[in-house]
């Protein structure tokens, strides 16, 4: 069959001839040359892509071309699509059975080439919004990403013609797309902050959006950032935990509480029922953020409660008002439990270092700590009675554990005193024996 002698390749897609290649991938050659080329094609192809299981002409030719062309093939060996048996043509179209670029990369064969940035969401969405298709590979994978994306700020911006905003490949990478469970994936929880920061910490990119670029730096030093990035706690929130991922938007003042309550349940429930809720709503104040900040949230301290120098309550409540008194009372309650806990812990630590077995008491002390954490969470009810009740309950166990600590330390003293007395007895006995030996020794026998 006479092959079409043409170089009809979509604009922007480099042709093989541009690189001076003619052997290996046929571009308008006689039949004999074609046979030789085919032999070389297989020989070179086998050597070059021996590690590849995909033998499509895309893979073979791109490997032969080297450089960036081959790098794509190399990267694709790690791609989840490749691992699921998909190949280049499944996304880019074309005819992978032909070694002739005019055929394999022919638009008539459905070749799409590399999509423009604004076309990428729909490009990926062809499969990822198709439940029937996705189910064949991963039934648990959602198919609403594209719909969500169009509701996100990113999606709205790209529809408006801003091609700088993030689309699928900005976060998931391209040709080496990995599962979210893969630690090397840019969307793996530990890598998400860095992935978002790639754009959001870039002043040039963010200039047109007029949004700050310090979120990542703030997040890194926050309690959440340290938990995730330093301690490796995958349960700690990354950017997408609060902002969403495909539907990423900044949570507004009305919903920010609900974002935090996803994890901070007790605090959320109590705050919602507290007198602060209607007050914050009326003042249009972001409920959690107002006291705890947002990207640079630090571990809250007991000093932030109450009416002291570092207390947050006094920023709104003045001396004499009901809130001021409530803050002072709650602070006293929490402090008393914390001091009791720390005292018991110090006693038990001391006794344990000196050899007394106190594992049971230390185990009970965990419940006191849980009680303290619970009481701190209940502060968000802003009702002193609630906090007092919780503290009183925990205090019963705390007193008991502290008493055990006191007994353990007393036990150390008891043991050591016993030893000193025993030593005196030993010395006396040895001296008596020595004196007796001196008195009764018959002296050495001469032999």
């Amino acid at each position, binding site marked *: 069959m006479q092959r079409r002698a043409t170089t009809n390749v979509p604009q922007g897609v480099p042709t093989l001839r541009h690189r001076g290649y003619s052997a290996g991938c046929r571009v308008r050659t006689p039949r004999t040359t074609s046979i030789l080329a085919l032999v070389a094609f297989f020989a070179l192809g086998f050597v070059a892509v021996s590690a590849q299981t995909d033998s499509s002409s895309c893979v073979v030719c791109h490997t032969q071309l080297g450089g960036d062309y081959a790098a794509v093939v190399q990267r694709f060996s790690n791609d989840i699509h490749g691992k699921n048996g998909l190949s280049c043509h499944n996304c880019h179209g074309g005819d992978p059975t032909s070694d002739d670029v005019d055929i394999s990369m022919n638009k008539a064969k459905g070749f799409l080439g590399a999509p423009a940035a604004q076309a990428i969401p729909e490009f990926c969405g062809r499969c990822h919004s198709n439940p029937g298709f996705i189910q064949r590979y991963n039934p648990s994978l959602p198919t609403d990403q594209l719909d969500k994306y169009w509701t996100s700020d990113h999606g709205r911006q790209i529809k408006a013609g801003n091609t700088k905003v993030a689309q699928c490949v900005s976060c998931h990478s391209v040709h080496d797309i990995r599962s979210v469970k893969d630690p090397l994936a840019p969307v793996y929880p530990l890598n998400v902050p860095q992935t978002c920061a790639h754009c959001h910490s870039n002043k040039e990119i963010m200039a047109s959006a007029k949004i700050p670029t310090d979120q990542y730096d703030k997040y890194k030093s926050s309690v959440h950032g340290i938990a995730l990035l330093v301690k490796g706690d995958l349960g700690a929130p990354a950017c997408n935990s609060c902002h969403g991922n495909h539907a990423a938007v900044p949570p507004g003042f009305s919903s920010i509480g609900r974002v935090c309550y996803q994890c901070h349940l007790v605090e959320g429930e109590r705050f919602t029922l507290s007198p602060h809720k209607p007050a914050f709503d009326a003042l249009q104040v972001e409920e959690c953020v107002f006291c705890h900040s947002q990207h640079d949230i630090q571990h809250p301290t007991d000093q932030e409660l109450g009416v002291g120098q570092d207390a947050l309550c006094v920023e709104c409540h003045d001396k004499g008002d009901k809130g001021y008194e409530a803050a002072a009372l709650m602070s006293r309650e929490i402090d008393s439990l914390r001091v009791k806990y720390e005292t018991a812990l110090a006693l038990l630590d001391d006794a344990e270092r000196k*050899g007394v*077995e106190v594992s049971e008491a230390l185990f009970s002390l965990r419940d006191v700590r849980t009680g303290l954490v619970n009481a701190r969470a209940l502060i968000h009810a802003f009702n002193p009675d609630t906090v007092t009740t919780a503290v009183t309950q925990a205090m019963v166990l705390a007193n008991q554990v502290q008493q055990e600590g006191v007994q353990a330390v007393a036990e150390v003293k008891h043991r050591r005193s016993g030893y000193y007395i*025993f030593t005196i007895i030993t010395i006396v*006995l*040895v001296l008596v024996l020595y004196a007796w030996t001196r008195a009764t020794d*018959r002296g*050495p026998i*001469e*032999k």
Partner: protein
Amino acid sequence: MRSILAWLGERFQITDLIGFAKKKDVPIHHGFLWYYFGGISLFLFVVQVFTGALLLLYYKPGADSAFESVQFIITKVQYGWLIRSMHSWSANLMVLSVFIHMFSNFLESTYRKPRELTWLTGMIMFFIVLGFGFSGYLLPWNELAFFATKVGTDIAGVLPLVGKPLLVFLRGGDEVSGATLSRFFGFHVAILPGVFFIFLMAHLAFIQFQGMSDPLRLEGKIKRRMPFFPDFAMRDLMLWFLVFNLVAFLAVFFPWELGSKADPFSAAPAGIKPEWYFMFMFQTLKFLPAKILFFEGEFLGIAAFSLCGAVLFLWPFLERKSSLGEQQPLAKIFGTAAILFIIIMTVIGYTRG
């Protein structure tokens, strides 16, 4: 005292017994101190028996109960912590004392004719003491002991032909489990003490019959001797009080830790180490390459230690010169090298981690 002896004398022929006891004397020379270590080892064994018997009142063998029962002993039982700690410390001091006793006799060639059987019974007790240590270490069923036992029995399993059956025999199965604990408990409180007691009686009887040995280098030169009863025995007693005080000091100021309960499904914690008296062997095996010629390095190491043990055991029959009264430097060289090797390897084992 005399009236009691008179009363007994009217009923039994104790004068013969007293005469037998008085028969033994101790040669006085500048190596006199070493004679005390036999008595110290015996005293610490008695401490082991008494504290062990008390621990038996509360200890419950079993994977689900051993750790908890030891925890109960050291937290709830009156002075249980003291008894358990004294048992552990006196066990370690006993091993140390036995090592000193054995090497001092070896270096002074006291095993020579006619005391070969005293040496043999002593060596058998030495091996049993190591067995006591190995089996007792597992009984609290804590994490460290569990994995140390696993490693220790793995080493036994490396031996050709007998390795696998020996491993299964020691463990009571393929893995360290509750079955291992049960049989280690059986070894520790019944079999080993029973066998030990027989050899101890024989060892003491041989000494009583043959008297204390003079060092080879001083044979025929010692003019002064101390009667064992009561002069040396009283000094022994004084030393026992001091040793007992040392055990109490260690038990009070450095109580033996229990650690966390063994979990067969957890990964072995870092830095698993055997008891200090097995450390030199453990460290040597770590130094050996995986393959030496056609053999497994570990196998060759174990074979070498087994050979050394066998040579040491049969030494009185291999080294005949001292029995003829001739000086034998080989024992001194071999003994000193072994002591240095044990000390150096133990130090390396603890410092290199």
